[in-house]
C-alpha cells in the first residue's frame, strides 16, 4: 500500500503543471491519502492540518517525501508558502484532541479535498517584515535548538533583526530610565533654586523693612528734636529727658511694623501701653501728657518671677515686690527659670545674671524662643557697657542695676506694668485666649524680631 501511494505521488509529480508549489501539493496528497493519520491529518473542520507527532513525522515522512532533514526546516518551508502555525495557549495545548505536542498549520487555500484551491498557494517572493513579526517564536526556537539552519540570507537577516531588536529595546529602556532620572533631578534642582530665591527675597524684604523703619525713626527723632527746640525757644518748659524718651519709644515701636499682622493684632494693647512709657520720669508723647501730672498707677496682683540665687537678695527683692502688691515666685537658676516660664506665664521676670547652672542672659535667649512678650529685666551688679549690650542682645528688656532701692524697682515695675491688667485678671476675663494664642503665633513668625527692641534701644 505504501508503495502505491509512493507511485501515486511520483505520478502526480510528473503530471503536475504548476511546479511552483510542489511542496504544498506533496503535503496535500499525503493528507488526502490518509496513510499517516496517526502522524499527520486534517483537522475536523478540514481547513487546517495537524502534525500529531513531530518525531514520527521527522523520521518517517520527511526522509521519504521531502528533502527536509528536520522538522524545523519543514516548518520554515511552510512559512515560505504563507502557512501559519495555529497558536494555542498552554491550556489549549493540554486539552487539544491532537495531543499536547501537536502542531497545527493553516492556510486559507489549503483545505481538505480542495485541490483546486492549491493553485492560489504561492511561495512568497521576497522576505517581508511580516514574517519577522509573525514567526518570531518559531525562528527563535530554531536557533535555540542549535539545529542546522539553512544558510538562507533571509533567515539570517530575520534572526539578526530579532536579536538586535531585543538589545535595542533593552537599551531604549535604559535610556528612558536615565532620562526620567535626569528629569527628576532637574525638577529637584529647580525646586531648590526656587526655595533659595524665596528665602533670599524674604530676607531682602525683612532687611528692607528694618532699614525703612530705621530711617523713619531717625527722621522722627530729628523732627521731634527740632520741634522741642523750637518749643523751648518759645518759652515752653519741656520735661527732662524728653528727647531720649521719644527716641526710645519710637525705636521700640518701629520693629512691630515688620511683624506679622496676627502678632500686632493680638498684643497691641500690651505693647503700646508698655513701650512708649519706657522712661518713667516723664510722659514721652503728646497723648501721654496727662501722665506727667498724674502719678503712674500700678495695679496690684501682678505675678512676678524672681530668678536669683542669693538668699539675701531673694528676701529683699520679694519683700519689695510684695510691698507693691505683686505676688512672687522664686527660682534660683537659669534652667529652672526656663522650665517655669514654659509652664506658666508671668507679668514680669526679674532675672539675675550670674547664677549656677545657666546664666540669666543665656536663659533669656532661650525663653525668647518661645516667649517674646514677657518683660525680662536683668538684675546685675555688672554695669559695664559691653555686658549691658550683651544682656539686651539676649532679649532682655531692661537692666536694674544692683544694688537697687525700692524706688528703682518701682520705676521698673511702672515702666513695664503701668496701666496693664495683671494676667491673672485677664485670664478670668478672656479665658485662655490671651495666654495661649500669642505665644503660639509668635513662635514661627516673630522669632527674628525678638531681639530687635532691646537692640534698638541700645543704639540710642
Amino acid at each position, binding site marked *: 500500500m505504501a508503495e502505491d501511494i509512493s507511485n501515486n505521488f511520483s505520478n502526480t509529480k510528473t503530471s503536475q503543471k504548476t511546479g511552483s508549489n510542489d511542496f504544498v501539493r506533496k503535503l496535500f496528497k499525503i493528507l488526502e491519502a490518509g496513510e499517516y493519520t496517526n502522524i499527520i491529518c486534517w483537522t475536523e473542520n478540514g481547513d487546517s492540518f495537524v502534525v500529531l507527532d513531530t518525531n514520527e513525522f521527522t523520521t518517517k515522512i520527511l526522509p521519504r517525501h521531502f528533502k527536509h532533514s528536520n522538522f524545523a526546516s519543514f516548518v520554515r518551508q511552510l512559512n515560505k508558502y504563507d502557512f501559519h502555525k495555529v497558536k494555542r495557549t498552554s491550556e489549549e495545548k493540554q486539552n487539544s484532541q491532537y495531543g499536547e505536542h501537536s502542531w497545527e498549520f493553516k492556510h486559507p487555500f489549503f483545505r481538505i479535498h480542495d485541490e483546486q484551491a492549491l493553485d492560489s498557494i504561492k511561495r512568497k517572493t521576497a522576505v517581508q517584515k511580516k514574517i519577522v513579526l509573525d514567526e518570531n517564536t518559531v525562528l527563535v526556537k530554531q536557533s535555540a535548538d542549535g539545529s542546522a539552519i539553512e544558510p538562507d540570507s533571509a533567515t539570517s537577516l530575520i534572526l539578526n533583526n530579532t536579536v538586535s531588536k531585543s538589545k535595542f529595546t533593552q537599551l531604549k529602556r535604559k535610556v528612558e530610565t536615565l532620562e526620567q532620572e535626569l528629569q527628576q533631578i532637574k525638577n529637584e534642582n529647580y525646586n531648590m533654586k526656587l526655595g533659595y530665591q524665596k528665602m533670599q527675597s524674604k530676607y531682602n524684604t525683612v532687611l528692607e523693612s528694618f532699614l525703612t523703619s530705621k530711617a523713619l525713626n531717625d527722621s522722627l527723632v530729628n523732627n521731634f528734636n527740632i520741634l522741642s527746640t523750637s518749643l523751648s525757644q518759645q518759652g515752653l518748659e519741656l520735661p527732662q529727658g524728653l528727647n531720649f524718651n521719644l527716641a526710645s519709644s519710637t525705636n521700640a515701636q518701629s520693629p512691630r511694623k515688620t511683624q506679622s499682622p496676627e502678632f500686632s493684632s493680638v498684643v497691641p494693647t500690651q505693647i503700646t501701653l508698655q513701650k512708649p512709657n519706657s522712661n518713667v520720669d516723664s510722659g514721652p508723647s503728646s497723648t501721654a501728657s496727662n501722665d506727667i501730672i498724674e502719678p503712674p498707677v500700678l495695679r496690684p496682683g501682678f505675678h512676678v518671677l524672681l530668678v536669683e540665687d542669693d538668699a*539675701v537678695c531673694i528676701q*529683699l527683692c520679694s519683700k519689695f515686690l510684695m510691698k507693691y502688691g505683686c505676688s512672687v515666685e522664686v527660682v534660683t537658676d537659669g534652667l529652672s527659670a526656663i522650665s517655669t516660664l514654659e509652664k506658666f506665664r508671668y507679668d514680669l521676670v526679674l532675672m*539675675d545674671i550670674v547664677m549656677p547652672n545657666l546664666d540669666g542672659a543665656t536663659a533669656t535667649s532661650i525663653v525668647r524662643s518661645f516667649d517674646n512678650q514677657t518683660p525680662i529685666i536683668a538684675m546685675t*551688679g555688672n554695669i559695664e557697657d559691653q555686658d549691658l549690650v550683651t544682656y539686651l542682645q539676649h532679649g532682655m528688656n531692661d537692666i536694674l542695676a544692683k544694688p537697687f532701692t525700692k524706688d528703682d524697682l518701682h520705676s521698673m515695675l511702672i515702666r513695664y506694668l503701668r496701666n496693664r491688667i495683671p494676667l491673672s485678671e485677664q485670664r478670668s476675663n478672656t479665658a485662655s485666649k490671651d495666654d495661649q494664642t500669642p505665644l503660639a503665633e509668635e513662635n514661627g513668625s516673630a522669632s527674628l524680631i525678638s531681639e530687635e527692641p532691646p537692640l534698638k534701644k541700645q543704639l540710642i
Partner: protein
Amino acid sequence: MPTSVPIPTDVINWEILSEIVSMDEDNPDFSKELIIQYIDQAETTFAHIEAELDGSCDLTQLASLGHFLRGSSAALGLQRIAWACERIQNYGRKREGVVSGQEDDAHFAGLIRQTLEQARLEFAAVRRELSKFYHTQL
C-alpha cells in the same frame, strides 16, 4: 596698681539699709533676720574663698565667690564689704592688679588673699555697728 576705685568712706550706706529697716513695719524682725542671714552667708563665703586660696586656687571660682557676696553686701548697703568683694571678683578675672601683663595666677591669688583680710575687717566693723543698732550681739 591695685585699683582706681576708692573705697567708700562709711562702712554702711544707711540710705539703703534704712529703706530695708523701714520694711519692718509690717514684719517686725524682717531687716534683722535678713542681716543675720547675711552674716551667715558672709562667713561661709569667706571660708570658701580661703579654702580655695589654700587649695586649687582657681581664679574663676574666686571671682565667682567674690561676685556672690558682693551682691548681697551691696543690697544691704554694706558698701565697704561690697567694695572688697568687687576687688576679689576683678582680681579673679585679672581685670585689676595688672602691672606688666606678665603676672601669673599666684600674683592675683596674693591680691585676693590681701583683700580677703580687708573684707573680714570690714565685716567685723559691720557687725559692731549693726549690733549696736539692733541692740543685740550679732
